[in-house]
């Protein structure tokens, strides 16, 4: 029952947040800047496209939202959202990751008119092909938890970079621990 009450509170907070934030003409924060020459994660605005009319379709069942990702506008790092880290070959959310995700969820609720993109990454162990799937599983695990925290799954998409974009180029556990991560972007519809 206690749990039920908490969810009601979350929903109520969400409704209020939507009413407060999603007003016409509300401008997105311009707090994050990304080097557009960066070919990799969180960078680049090569997408072009005004994004007009490229809406978000309702998710069917447990699938990803039917977003035409090519029509998304600029994608940039959601700098206020913390990065979460994973154990080796695992997509289980550690307690520290859950805490970070709770904070991230509140930030995302304040930005109801953007698509959230969760990036999953791996360390260099495991095969290149498997790591693409593992990175996706990490991004999906983070997405699932964000949905449970009240961020609409209709606006959370995932991307896996596998082992292709390490945060730390080293070849030891110190580097690997930093590379097994999920980071959070916002994308213009």
């Amino acid at each position, binding site marked *: 029952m206690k749990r039920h009450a908490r969810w009601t509170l979350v929903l109520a907070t969400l409704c209020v947040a939507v009413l407060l934030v999603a007003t016409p003409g509300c401008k997105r924060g311009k707090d994050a800047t990304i080097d557009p020459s960066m070919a990799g994660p969180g960078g680049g605005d090569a997408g072009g496209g005004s994004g007009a009319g490229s809406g978000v379709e309702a998710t069917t069942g447990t699938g990803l939202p039917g977003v035409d990702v*090519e029509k998304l506008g600029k994608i940039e790092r959601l700098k206020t959202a913390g990065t979460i880290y994973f154990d080796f070959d695992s997509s289980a959310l550690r307690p520290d990751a859950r805490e970070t995700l709770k904070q991230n969820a509140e930030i995302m609720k304040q930005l109801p008119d953007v698509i959230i993109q969760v990036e999953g990454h791996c360390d260099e162990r495991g*095969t*290149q092909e*498997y790591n693409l799937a593992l990175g996706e599983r990490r991004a999906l695990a983070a997405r699932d938890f964000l949905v449970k925290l009240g961020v609409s799954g209709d606006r959370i998409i995932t991307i896996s970079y596998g082992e292709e974009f390490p945060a730390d180029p080293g070849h030891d556990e110190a580097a690997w621990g930093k590379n097994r991560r999920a980071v959070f972007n916002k994308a213009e519809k």
Partner: protein
Amino acid sequence: MRAICLIVVGAILVLGIPAWAQETVSDVVVKGREEGIAIAVPPFATAPGLEALGQKMAALLRYDLDFTGLFTVLLPHQYPPDFVGFTSDAAQIDFDAWRATNAEFLVHCYLYQEDGAYLVDCRLFDLYAAQTVVGVRMKPEAGSLHLAGHQFSEEIVRALTGVPGVASSQLCFSGGPTGSKEIYVSDYDGVNLVQVTKHNSVSILPQFSPDGRKIAYVSFKDRFPFLYILDLDTGSSVPLSKSVGLNVAPAWAPDGKRLAIVLSKDANAEIYLVNRDGSNPRRLTDNRAMDTSPSFHPDGSRIAFVSERAGSAQIYAMNADGSGVTRLSYQGGRSYDPAWSPDGRSIAYVVERRGEGLEIYMMDADGKNPRRLTASPGSNESPSWSPDSRHVVFASTRTGTTALWTVNVASLEARRVPALDLPCQGPDWGPRRK
């Protein structure tokens, strides 16, 4: 790109071939180089001015024959003491002197030019039967002299073992440093490296179509991991799949008309079958665990793949419609990257045991008889079979940088693919060229 015509100039007499050579590949056990077929490939006789090229072509043939693991290729000091080089006239060969070297077979080639084009007359002699086993006149198209040499070596291997060699085949792979990878194609010996994409992005996991003229691959060039198909004849690249989430792990069906791919639009990595133009996607796997890395049996009836449905990544196989799933790997570690051999009899894959890194394994197609093919520090991954099912190419970090290596699955001899001076990953071994 169809490179040369092979014109048989002599009667092809296949004589004196050891009985074991008629057996299928996997039954041939190569116990050491000393037991291979002894063959001599001296420098080609040439028209004036082509001497250096004649030396290089002979070296290419020697590499090809040595690579098979089935031959003992004579070294120059083992040639007859009086031998100073061939003349264009094979009738002048001192067969008695060559028989005294213990060589069983001798290759005589004459390289010359007519109207600006190269011609090569080649003969393979059986020294004991005193017969020509293979005789060909090759007239390679411009730029295809090396390919002609590789194709003649395939003929030698076919004549003496029953199965042609693979020296005309090519590799495709991703090359370049972290964060900047393009797709490359090279000959199987690393020569004639060509960069076939210029996306200035990360492009990985290329797979040759069955005819070798197209490459399916993953690229982040449009910001997301999408699948593309590159036409090697036109150089144009068209999208295969651009779904939300993952679009990775392409595997061509043997008919070249469909591909198995991995999508995560269901909020879980699942294997789909799509037409070559990306149309008509059909989902083949349906469970809560990740499924990835499909690889077709050569007859198209079965698909090997990786699934985590039992808790850790293991190799499974299913029918091409998704039914009839069976688990194949039980190595006590995680297993990845299955690759079905072209003869259908084996599956190469990767096993990761804690503390051991990644090693290449192979097993029978029913999962029996698993055995390790590599034993090295670092990571060994992305196995792909040679067209004759005698070798597996893979990416290895054993020397520090990521490089391509091959292993002879009978002798377990490993060798680095030479001549590649860039970090290489995710190789796929293409078909022989015609």
